C-alpha cells in the first residue's frame, strides 16, 4: 500500500505530505482531518485541514505572524500575545495560535493597532532582559532578538532600573546545557516540551506573577532533579536560557547535515550542526519520521566519543596477544590479515574462519562484510550481534506472519487503544518511542506491562499501567499461553479475521492446545507467580480493544524459549485481529541502531540478503552471477557455534567488525577461552575494545559521523547516514572491507556507498525501489519498497500476510534449564539504563557516566535483609558459569527472588555470570535468566582480579606500541 497524503500510513486525512527538508516552524502542530477549510488571510485565499490554527494557516500561506510562546512541536498556549490578529466580525485581537480556522474567515495579520500592541508586549519583555546580545550564546539564533526586530522596537520607556531578574544565578549542573534564569521570558515552552514532547514532567513554573521562574522538580539543580536530559526543553527555548554548553563554547554553527543517530533501534533523525568538520551540536530533525523532532540524552548529547582521545587511528598488528602492538600501514595490516586467513584455511580447511558483521555499522558495510565472508572466505560463517538479541524475532515472525520484521510505524502507537509492553523497558532502552507511547496513554489508551521488574513505565507521571503482570523470569511462554487461553475460552477470538486470513488447520490445532486446562491462568499462576484474575482482565482488555498493539524487547527474545514467545505474541495478535492496520501490530523494539538492517543484509549464516535461505539454488544463482563466485549451499556457524568450534579447534580465524563479543556475549570465560584458542582475530573498531585485547590485527574504524551509508530502524525505516567529517583513520569502514577483500584476491569495486545500495536493491526484492536518490526525495523509506510499494510500506500485512495465510504455532511452555536450586536460589536478569548504551564503549567516554558510573546489583529489601546486605555493600554474585562482585542497590522495583544488573562496564563482569543456555531455535543466549546466589563479600572476584591484570597488560601493549614502522611506511607510500 502506498502512502496516503500525510504520509502516516493509512490515515484518511487531506493533510499535505511533509517535505522532509522543510524547517519552517509553523507555530502550532499539524492537524489531520478529512475536511478542508478555506479562509482569507491578508486578502489571500488559504486552504488547510479543519482544526488548523489561524497562525499555522498564515505561515503555510507564507505570512510569518510574530510569535514567541508558539512552536509547532507544542500545543498552542496563547501567553506571549505577540501573534494577535484581527478577524472580521470578531471582537478584540485574538491570539492566532489558539484560534482555529473557520470557513470564510477574514484575517488581517498586520494593522497599525496590531503593530502597536505587539511593540508594547516586546517593550515589557525587554525591560527585564539583559541587553548583552552581542556576547550572548544565542546571538544569531534567538527568537526574542528576531521578534524585537520584527515589531520594530526602538526604545524601552520603562528603563531597566526596576525590579528584574538580571542577577539570577545560572544552573550549570547539567554537563550538556546551562539554565540561565536571567534570560528567561517565561514562555513555558520548556515546561510544555518536558510534558508534551518528552513526558517526564520534570519542569514547572514556580512562583506567581513577577516571581514566576522555570524550576526543575522542587527547585533543584537540573542534575539533582527528575530531568532525564533529553534536551527537548533546550530545543524549545526561544532564547539563551536553556543552551547547549557546546554552543556557549563554540558559537553558532555555520552549516548542518541531516543524519541518523547511531544509538538504539529507534533510529532518530538528527541534524549535525557544524563548523567546518567540527560538530557544534546535534539536534533532533523536526522532519525525522522516526522521532518527529525528539531525541534523548544519548543521541542528542553523547556524541563526544567520536573524537575521544582513546580513538585509535592507525592499523596495528602483532603475532601473539602477549606481544606489544606494532603500528603498520593499511597495506601491511591488510595483507598480513589476508595471508593469515589464507594460511589457516590452507591448513584447516575453507570453513575454519568466519566473520561478524556489525549491527552498529551501516547497511552497506554490513552487506560488504557478509559478501566478503561468503565470496572471499568461501563459506557461510557469518553472523551478527542480532544473534544475541533479536534472532528469535526473525525466526518467530517469519514462521507466523511471513516476514522477519515489525509490522508498524512508531507513529502507529498514536492510534492504539490498548498498548501491551512485554519484556521491554522503553523509557530506558527506546526513550524517544517511549515518549510517543506515554503521550498516547495520557490521551486515554490503556497500558498493560508484562515484566518481572516494576520498570518506570508502570507508574510514571500521568501514565499508569492498568495491569502490571510481574511474572517470574523465564515464564513468558506460560504467560502468553494463559492470555491465549482466556481469549479462546471466553470467545474473544476475532473469528472472521482468522477465517479469512489464517491457515485453518494450524489455527484449530492451536485453539485445541491453548484451551487445555494446563494453559489456564489459574494453573499457570503457580508458574508465573501472577494472579489469574489479573491475567484474565489483561487478556480481555487486549482482545476487546478497538486497536491493540504489542511492543516487546529483549525480555522476550533472550530466553531459552525466546522464539516460542515471539510466535506466541504473533498468535495473540492474529487471534484478536490486531494485525494489518494502524494502531495495532507486533512490534519488536530493536536494540542497536542497525540490528534490523544487519539482519536484512544477510548477516545470518543461513540467509542471503532479504531473508532467503542459502539452500535455495535459484537465489544462490542470482548472487553467484552478481558476485562472480560459487557459494556454499549449507548454513555456516552462528556466533555461539563459532566459539564452540574454536574451543574444539576447528575455527581459528575471525574478522569482527564493530562488535565487542567479549563484553557483550554470555559466559565471558568461555568466550575468552575460545578467542585465546584462535590464531588470527581481526578486530575493526573505533576503540581498543575488550575483543581487541584478544586480537592480532586491529583495523581502526570510523564513527557514524565519518561515513556515508544507511541505517534501518525497528520500523524497517531506511535512513541516510551522512558524512560530516573525514574518517579519522583515513578510510571509512566500507573502504577497509573492500581493501581486505582485494588482499584476499577477491575484487570489490565501489567508489561510494550508494553503489553498494544499488547492488543490494538489484538483488533484494524488498529493496528494489531503494536508492540514495529516493532516500533524498522521501527523507526515509520503510521496506518493502518496490514496484508494488514505490514509497515504501509503513504498515505490513494489510490485506494478506506476507506468507499468504497467517500460521498459528503451538507454543508449549517448557521450563528453562536455568532453575533455582538451594545453591543458586535467586534469578538474575540483565538489562540497560537510559544514559548508557550496550557495552558502554561510546557512552562511557562521554559525560553520560555522570548519571551511571558503575553497574550495580539491584536486589529486593527482603533478599538483602536475609543475606545481611546493606545499600552500597560489595556483594558476590555466583552462577554455574562464574562469579563477580558488584555493589548492591536495594530497591522494591525488584520482586523477591529476582536480582538485576546492567552490563555497561567491562570490569563488572555481568556476563561472567550469564550462562550458555540459549534459545532452542536460534541460539540467542538466555541473558534474562541465570540462577545465582548473592552474598556479601570483602573483595573483587578472582575473575575481576584476573581481568584487571590482563587489562593492565593489554593497555601497556597499546601504550608501548611501536610506531616507527607506520611512520616509515607512510613516508614511503607518500613518496611513491
Amino acid at each position, binding site marked *: 500500500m502506498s502512502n496516503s497524503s500525510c504520509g502516516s500510513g493509512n490515515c484518511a486525512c487531506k493533510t499535505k505530505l511533509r517535505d522532509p527538508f522543510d524547517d519552517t516552524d509553523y507555530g502550532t502542530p499539524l492537524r489531520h482531518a478529512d475536511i478542508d477549510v478555506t479562509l482569507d488571510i491578508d486578502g489571500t485565499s488559504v486552504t488547510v485541514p479543519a482544526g488548523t490554527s489561524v497562525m499555522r494557516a498564515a505561515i503555510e500561506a507564507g505570512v510569518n505572524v510574530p510569535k514567541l510562546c508558539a512552536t509547532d512541536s507544542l500545543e498552542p498556549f496563547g501567553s506571549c500575545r505577540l501573534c494577535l490578529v484581527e478577524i472580521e466580525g470578531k471582537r478584540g485581537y485574538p491570539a492566532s495560535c489558539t484560534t482555529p480556522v473557520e470557513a470564510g474567515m477574514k484575517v488581517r495579520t498586520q494593522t497599525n493597532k496590531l503593530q502597536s500592541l505587539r511593540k508594547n508586549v516586546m517593550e515589557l519583555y525587554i525591560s527585564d532582559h539583559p541587553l548583552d546580545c552581542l556576547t550572548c550564546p544565542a546571538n544569531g539564533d534567538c527568537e526574542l532578538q528576531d521578534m524585537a526586530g520584527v515589531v520594530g522596537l526602538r526604545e524601552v520607556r520603562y528603563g531597566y532600573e526596576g525590579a528584574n531578574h538580571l542577577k539570577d544565578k545560572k544552573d550549570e549542573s547539567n554537563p550538556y546545557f546551562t539554565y540561565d534564569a536571567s534570560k528567561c521570558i517565561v514562555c513555558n515552552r520548556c515546561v510544555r516540551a518536558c510534558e508534551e514532547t518528552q513526558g517526564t514532567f520534570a519542569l514547572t513554573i514556580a512562583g506567581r506573577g513577577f516571581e514566576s521562574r522555570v524550576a526543575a522538580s522542587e527547585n533543584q539543580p537540573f542534575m539533582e532533579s527528575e530531568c532525564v536530559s533529553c534536551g527537548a526543553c533546550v530545543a524549545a527555548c526561544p532564547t539563551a536560557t536553556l543552551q547547549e554548553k557546546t554552543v556557549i563554547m563554540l558559537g553558532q554553527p555555520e552549516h548542518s547535515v541531516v543524519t541518523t543517530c547511531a544509538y538504539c533501534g529507534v533510529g532518530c533523525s538528527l541534524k549535525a550542526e557544524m563548523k567546518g568538520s567540527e560538530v557544534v551540536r546535534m539536534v533532533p530533525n523536526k522532519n525525522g519520521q522516526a522521532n518527529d523532532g525528539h531525541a534523548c540524552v544519548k543521541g542528542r548529547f553523547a556524541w563526544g566519543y567520536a573524537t575521544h582521545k582513546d580513538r585509535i587511528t592507525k592499523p596495528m598488528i602483532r603475532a601473539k596477544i602477549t606481544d606489544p602492538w606494532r603500528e603498520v600501514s593499511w597495506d601491511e595490516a591488510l595483507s598480513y590479515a589476508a595471508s593469515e586467513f589464507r594460511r589457516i584455511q590452507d591448513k584447516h580447511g575453507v*570453513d575454519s574462519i568466519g566473520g561478524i558483521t556489525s549491527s552498529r555499522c551501516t547497511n552497506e558495510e554490513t552487506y560488504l562484510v557478509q559478501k566478503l565472508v561468503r565470496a572471499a572466505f568461501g563459506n*557461510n*560463517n557469518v553472523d551478527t550481534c542480532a544473534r544475541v538479541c533479536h534472532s528469535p524475532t526473525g525466526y518467530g515472525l517469519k514462521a507466523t506472519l511471513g516476514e522477519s520484521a515489525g509490522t508498524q510505524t512508531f507513529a502507529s502507537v498514536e492510534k492504539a487503544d490498548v498498548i501491551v509492553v512485554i519484556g521491554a523497558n522503553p523509557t530506558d532502552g527506546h526513550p524517544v518511542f517511549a515518549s510517543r507511547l506515554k503521550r498516547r496513554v495520557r490521551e486515554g489508551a490503556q497500558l498493560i506491562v508484562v515484566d518481572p521488574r516494576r520498570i518506570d513505565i508502570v507508574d510514571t507521571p500521568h501514565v499508569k499501567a492498568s495491569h502490571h503482570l510481574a511474572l517470574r523470569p523465564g515464564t513468558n511462554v506460560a504467560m502468553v499461553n494463559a492470555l491465549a487461553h482466556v481469549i479462546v475460552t471466553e470467545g474473544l477470538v476475532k473469528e472472521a479475521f482468522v477465517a479469512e486470513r489464517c491457515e485453518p488447520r494450524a489455527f484449530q*490445532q492451536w485453539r*485445541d*492446545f491453548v484451551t487445555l486446562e494446563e494453559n489456564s491462568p489459574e494453573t499457570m499462576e503457580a508458574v508465573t507467580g501472577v494472579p489469574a484474575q489479573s491475567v484474565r482482565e489483561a487478556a480481555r482488555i487486549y482482545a476487546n480493544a478497538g486497536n491493540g498493539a504489542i511492543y516487546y524487547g529483549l525480555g522476550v527474545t533472550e530466553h*531459552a524459549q525466546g522464539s*516460542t514467545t515471539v510466535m506466541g505474541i504473533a498468535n495473540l495478535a492474529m487471534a484478536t485481529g490486531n494485525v494489518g492496520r494502524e494502531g495495532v501490530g507486533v512490534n519488536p523494539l530493536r536494540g542497536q541502531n542497525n540490528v534490523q538492517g544487519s539482519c536484512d543484509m544477510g548477516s545470518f*549464516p*543461513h540467509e542471503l540478503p532479504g531473508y532467503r*535461505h542459502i*539452500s535455495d539454488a535459484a537465489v544462490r544463482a542470482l548472487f553467484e552471477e552478481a558476485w562472480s563466485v560459487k557459494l556454499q549451499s*549449507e*548454513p*555456516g*556457524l*552462528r556466533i555461539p*557455534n563459532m566459539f*564452540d*568450534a574454536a*574451543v*574444539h579447534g*576447528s575455527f581459528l580465524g575471525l574478522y569482527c567488525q564493530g562488535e565487542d563479543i567479549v563484553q557483550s556475549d554470555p559466559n565471558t570465560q568461555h568466550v575468552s577461552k575460545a578467542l585465546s584458542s584462535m590464531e588470527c582475530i581481526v578486530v575493526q573498531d573505533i576503540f581498543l575494545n575488550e575483543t581487541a585485547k584478544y586480537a592480532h590485527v586491529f583495523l581502526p574504524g570510523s564513527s557514524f559521523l565519518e561515513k556515508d551509508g544507511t541505517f534501518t530502524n525497528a520500523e524497517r525505516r531506511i535512513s541516510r547516514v551522512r558524512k560530516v567529517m573525514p574518517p579519522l583513520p583515513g578510510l571509512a569502514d566500507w573502504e577497509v572491507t573492500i581493501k581486505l577483500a582485494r588482499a584476499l584476491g577477491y575484487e570489490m569495486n565501489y567508489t561510494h556507498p550508494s553503489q553498494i545500495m544499488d547492488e543490494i536493491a538489484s538483488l533484494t526484492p524488498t529493496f528494489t525501489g531503494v536508492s540514495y536518490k529516493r532516500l533524498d526525495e522521501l527523507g526515509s523509506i520503510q521496506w518493502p519498497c518496490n514496484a508494488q510499494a514505490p514509497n515504501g510500506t509503513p504498515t505490513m500485512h494489510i490485506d494478506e500476510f506476507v506468507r499468504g495465510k497467517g500460521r498459528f504455532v*503451538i507454543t*508449549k511452555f*517448557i521450563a528453562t*534449564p536455568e532453575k533455582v536450586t538451594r545453591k543458586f536460589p535467586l534469578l538474575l536478569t540483565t538489562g540497560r539504563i537510559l544514559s548508557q548504551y550496550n557495552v558502554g564503549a561510546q557512552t562511557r567516554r562521554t559525560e553520560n557516566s555522570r548519571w551511571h558510573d558503575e553497574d550495580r546489583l539491584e536486589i529486593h529489601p527482603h533478599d538483602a535483609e536475609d543475606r545481611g546486605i546493606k545499600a552500597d555493600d560489595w556483594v558476590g554474585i555466583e552462577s554455574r558459569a562464574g562469579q563477580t562482585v558488584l555493589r548492591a542497590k536495594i530497591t522494591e522495583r525488584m520482586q523477591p527472588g529476582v536480582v538485576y544488573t546492567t552490563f555497561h562496564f567491562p570490569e563488572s563482569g555481568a556476563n561472567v555470570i550469564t550462562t*550458555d543456555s*540459549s534459545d*532452542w*531455535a*536460534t*541460539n540467542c543466549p538466555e541473558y534474562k535468566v541465570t540462577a545465582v546466589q548473592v552474598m556479601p563479600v570483602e573483595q573483587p572476584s578472582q575473575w575481576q582480579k584476573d581481568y584487571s591484570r590482563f587489562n593492565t597488560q593489554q593497555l601497556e601493549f597499546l601504550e608501548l606500541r611501536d610506531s616507527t614502522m607506520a611512520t616509515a611506511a607512510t613516508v614511503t607510500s607518500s613518496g611513491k
Partner: protein
Amino acid sequence: MDVNSLVEMANQIGEFFDSMPDRAEAVDGVADHIHRFWAPRMRIALLNGLDDPEVASELKPIVLEALTKHRVALTPAGAVVT
C-alpha cells in the same frame, strides 16, 4: 564440536516440535530445523553421536527418531563420517 552441548540443543528443538499433534510433521520439523540452521560440522558431530550408544541414550525419542529417519538428508554432501 562438543557433542554433549549439541545433544542438549537438539533436545531443546525436539521439545518444541514434540507438542505438535501430528507426529510425522513433528519428526520432520526437528530434522528440517537442524538441516536449515546447523552448520555441516555440527550435524556431522551429532550424527556421529547417533552411533555411540552413550550419546544416543541422551537424545529425546523424537530427536532420535528424526535423526534416524532423516540421517541421509542431514548428512552434508562430501562429509567424512567417522
